[in-house]
């Protein structure tokens, strides 16, 4: 399978904000944030079918998200995961000595992973610190 190299940004969206205020364990938060928006041209290049899962890998982590066509137009070469738990699995903590991590503009590789399952927010965060006991 082809891997594509894209420039990743992670920013806010109203769906994410509205779902976050219902609680981060709410299914709406999962639906709103576990997605990666990218240009259909890039999807074609990477052999990715829309609404299937992909593996996003950056210099410091990897996460499974669902690839969708952009809700707000993304030019080819740019990918967007909404701010939140899934995005932060791949955001590099380097801060250019300002305290602010590189939330926008870091290189990622994206490859199709249609067989992989999306993880819940709790699974990702608790899993990262060794507290995940399974369940939802």
């Amino acid at each position, binding site marked *: 399978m082809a891997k594509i190299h894209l*420039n990743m*940004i*992670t*920013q*806010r*969206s*109203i769906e994410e*904000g*509205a*779902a*976050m*205020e*219902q*609680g*981060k*364990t709410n299914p709406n938060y999962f639906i709103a944030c576990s997605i990666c928006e990218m240009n259909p041209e890039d999807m074609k290049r990477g052999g990715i079918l829309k609404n299937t899962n992909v593996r996003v890998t950056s210099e*410091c*982590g990897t996460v499974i998200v669902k690839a969708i066509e*952009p809700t*707000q*137009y*993304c*030019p080819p070469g*740019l990918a*967007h995961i909404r*701010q*939140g*738990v899934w995005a*932060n*699995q791949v*955001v*590099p*903590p380097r*801060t*250019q*000595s*300002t*305290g*602010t*991590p*590189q*939330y*926008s*503009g870091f290189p990622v590789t994206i490859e199709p992973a249609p067989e992989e399952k999306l993880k819940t*927010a*709790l699974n*990702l*965060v*608790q899993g*990262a*610190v060794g*507290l995940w*006991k399974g369940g939802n």
Partner: protein
Amino acid sequence: MPKLIKGVGCPYCGSSCDDLEVLISDDETKVLEVHNACIIGTNLFHHANDPTRPKLPRMRQPDGTMKEIPYTEAIDYMAKTMLAAKKPLIYGFGSTNCEGMSAVARIAEKSGAVLDNCATICHGPSFLAIFDNGYPSCTLGEAKNRADVVVFWGCNPMHAHPRHTSRYSIFPRGYFTQKGQMQRTVLSIDPRETDTAKLADIHLMLDQGHDYELFDAFRTVLRGFDIPETVAGIPRDTIKKSVEIMKNARFCMIFFGMGCTHTNGRNHNIDAAISLTRDLNEHTKCSIMAMRGHYNIAGPGQVWAWQFGFPYCIDLSKGTHAHMNPGETSSVDLAMRDEVDCFVNVGADAGAHFPIQPVQHLKKHPFITIDPNFNMASEISDLHIPVRIAGVDEPGVVYRMDNVPIQFKAVLKGLPGVPSDEELFNLVYERMCELTQTKPIWLAAKEDRRYPESEAVI
């Protein structure tokens, strides 16, 4: 009879809308309807009805489960843990009132902690640029009444500040802008065609991460020099046209957001934006404003700058004076270098909104969350202390994104026995004083605030 409360402030985004109307049940415990708010504000108020909201602190047990404990025990644990730590980190304050921010400062001083707020991962670089270059800003009222050219640089208010455009920036009719949107020219600079860009008259879809070049090109054109054919993916003519629009404005307003501070360049992007504002003032009136994310994230900047002289990244571990040096005393950097040995997360969610590596580093040490709801940080904490929700069941002063203070109301009765942030921090401070056998120092003006009139705890 349900009661309609008017003039309610919305504790969500930096727009801090204060025109909400909330219909509450006659026993003042449930929100029934929310008028005027955006979907996020509406969800926020309704979330306060959640019957599963925690009413007691929860302590993590050796087997990994959480067990409810009384407040006295939680306060004792927090006081002891923070005193035992060599350098605790207190982070958050995106969603609490100024009273809470002021109260936490006593704990921070007592325990020699680092005090940081959400600006550290948000508009921190803007602060750095403002220190270097000044902040020729104004209030949102001025933007509404005067601005006929509005520039959104790296921000997407349609998503992050949903009512910003209708209350302040694009649509409202002001004193000198009586035709509202018809009279305003809107420019959007964003690598994506966001919903804000769709509203704009001109959308400059720059190459992501090239904001500095584009700001520089704007300044170069403004000073009458020539620029290359394309800069940051934008054709020369479009840049010239945009500069012409800004130059011929009666009042030009530049809003900038995370698109500038989260990407390469950080504070230098903002530095260039402020310089552009200054240059434009040679030709017309121009003002600039940071699109602050939370309803009171300008608050810690105000409160702590007054108390310690710095708005964020305040290292009090020296015991004699406050010291600030982002990159060294900023939360993410401290965590990555394993320089803190206790983490207190207040009214924010470091678990969800920090990159995951700093969270893993912080989790090596005691991890305390103070938040009204369950969130990712509370679910990995050793101790989760619930408090009242500022702006919903706790009143308080908040600073809007333009640094205008607003008194927010409480619409609901707080959950019985659950303290506010301020009350909790005061109790922890008193416990710390007991443990160290020192006398608590209260400001005379604050005497009556030690235990505000509520039946919360003890």
